[in-house]
């Protein structure tokens, strides 16, 4: 039986550094699946087929099958164009057929939907290879456990953060018969309709690759629908043509949302784009928000912050009050339980102050912490299952 070890502890306790140190000390190389694409995929290939070919080991290792990802339709896709969950599954597939004798996974399983997560954990639990795992949502019982004590850095001042959130007069969003397909023909939405009310948290759920992030990109105007209409407060809203003025987006990978190298630069550029609407976003208030998120200075270089801290800083712009709608793509990725609980409370406060919130998460535990309306993306449509306000 091979060694299976879970590194448990809160954020900033040194788990990730310890994991990488363990890997560097090993005599033989090990496969590494980091929390985001840069550390999950090789970066050397431009198709899924090549990514698999690169890691293909000789002779093949006796490993249990991992059938969680249907690779048949993905062979020609660029690995970077897959959804976050699909990228993690691809990485696990690469390991499954590689010659590596060990794998380390740093919070990456948090990006998987429940079914894929169960399949991935079963694969890692097979005992056919060494595993080291960091996961904020589960520590498998039978595994060796290495506990890490809480560190001192990056404590969030939640009451201060809540005080800083201003009131909003949000408007309802109506999406009618939305069609969207990516170049190459992959149809994501077909006559999808949904109405989103302000003052409510909406949870977008669905399998990995169903189109959750695509829906957010359509609403901010990064993608244009093939057909259909979006209305904001009853008025036609076409951000893909006129620019985004209603939604503040915190992306799944925080590094995919920065508009500058430092927080000050990032905020200055966003404010400039807002014009007169940016009057309430003066530096003093933004500094207060940043301080509450434990960032001492707006001149902090974003890429020098630890990943979990960058994820938290990504909440700053949505909380700044510049937009009536807040979009959070896997907001609790890499966050420990205490942070997720507090963040759920904060979302409740934000909704109570009139904002509309759309969040994407596979974290059922987090979703259960706050009242919300669940929306399911399935079969190219958006539905609202009977369950609400869990």
């Amino acid at each position: 039986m091979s060694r299976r070890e879970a590194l448990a502890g809160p954020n900033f306790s040194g788990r990730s550094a310890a994991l990488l140190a363990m890997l560097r000390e090993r005599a033989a190389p090990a496969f590494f699946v980091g929390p985001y694409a840069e550390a999950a995929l090789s970066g050397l290939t431009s198709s899924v087929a090549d990514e698999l070919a690169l890691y293909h080991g000789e002779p093949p290792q006796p490993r249990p099958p991992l059938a969680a990802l249907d690779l048949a339709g993905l062979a020609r896709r660029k690995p970077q164009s897959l959804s976050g969950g699909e990228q993690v599954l691809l990485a696990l597939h690469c390991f499954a057929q590689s010659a590596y004798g060990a794998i380390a996974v740093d919070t990456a399983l948090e990006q998987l939907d429940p079914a894929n997560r169960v399949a991935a954990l079963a694969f890692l639990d097979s005992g056919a290879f060494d595993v080291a795992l960091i996961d904020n949502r589960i520590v498998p019982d039978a595994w060796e456990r290495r506990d890490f004590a809480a560190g001192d850095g990056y404590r969030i001042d939640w009451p201060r953060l809540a005080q800083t959130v201003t009131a909003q007069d949000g408007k309802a969003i109506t999406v009618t018969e939305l069609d969207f397909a990516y170049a190459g023909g992959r149809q994501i939405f077909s006559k999808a309709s949904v109405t989103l009310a302000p003052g409510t948290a909406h949870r977008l759920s669905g399998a990995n690759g169903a189109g959750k992030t695509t829906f957010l990109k359509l609403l901010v105007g990064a993608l244009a629908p093939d057909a259909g209409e979006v209305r904001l407060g009853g008025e036609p809203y076409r951000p893909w043509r006129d620019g985004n003025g209603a939604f503040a987006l915190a992306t799944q990978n925080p590094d995919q949302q920065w508009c500058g190298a430092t927080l000050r630069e990032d905020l200055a550029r966003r404010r400039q784009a807002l014009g007169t609407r940016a009057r309430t976003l003066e530096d003093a208030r933004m500094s207060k928000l940043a301080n509450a998120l434990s960032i001492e200075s707006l001149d902090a270089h974003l890429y020098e912050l630890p990943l979990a801290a960058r994820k938290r800083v990504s909440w700053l712009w949505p909380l700044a009050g510049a937009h009536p709608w807040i979009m959070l793509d896997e907001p609790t990725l890499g966050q420990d339980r205490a942070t997720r609980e507090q963040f759920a409370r904060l979302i409740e406060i934000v909704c109570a102050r009139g904002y509309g919130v759309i969040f994407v998460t596979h974290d059922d535990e987090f979703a259960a912490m706050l009242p919300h309306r669940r929306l399911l993306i399935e079969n190219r449509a958006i539905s609202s299952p009977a369950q609400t306000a869990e």
Partner: protein
Amino acid sequence: MTPNGGVVLAAVLIVAAILAGPSGIVILAAAATVFATLEVGGASCLAALRRALLVMVPLAAFMLIVWVGVVGRAPQEIAAGAAGSRQAALVYVATVAGRLFLIVWVVQLVGLRFADQTVLGFVRMLHAPVAAKRLMVLTLSLVETLRHSVDRAHTALIAGGILTRGWSLRNLANGWILMQTIWLTAVTTVTARIRDKWPVEDTVALLDHALAGGRARLSPGDVGWIAAALAAGLAAQIVGWHVAA
């Protein structure tokens, strides 16, 4: 045709295009058209044409403004201290633009000829030392990283309200922010990769195994196309000398 044949053919046509004058470029374009028609075919041929035009047209427009509109003389006339003419400047612009068009078109044609193969598969089949193939894959992966960075930075700036998806004055004013964000994204992506994943996995070493092998010989078809390209290149030179004389 084999990947080896495709690479040699492209190299011959590119070198010939660099050496050719205006009339020689017409001959080489005719040779490339025959290759496109017989070996690449229909939709791929048009796609290659469209991409080559997309690269060439902006440069040609810019050069027309500068050399024909503003300067009014060809560079060789300036070097010779001659009075010069806009007509000569126009011929100069046409030659440079035609050369660029031909080079991009040929590269696209050869690429699309092997579109059914993956990049790794294509490079593996080349008859070259593994170190050279590894360098090729690393270079292509950097290009891929840049392309991904463009997409990522574009999305971030649209979501931030700094750019719009379509044409707009906002895009004109903030285009420089896109350029800066692309580079920042690319650098940080590569840094994260080479700091965490590659050292513990020894990922780059996997390329040696993945790229080993390759076909050593050119196929008869390759030899035919390369001979035709050499003949076209020679004809382009002879015509050039004839015109100069």
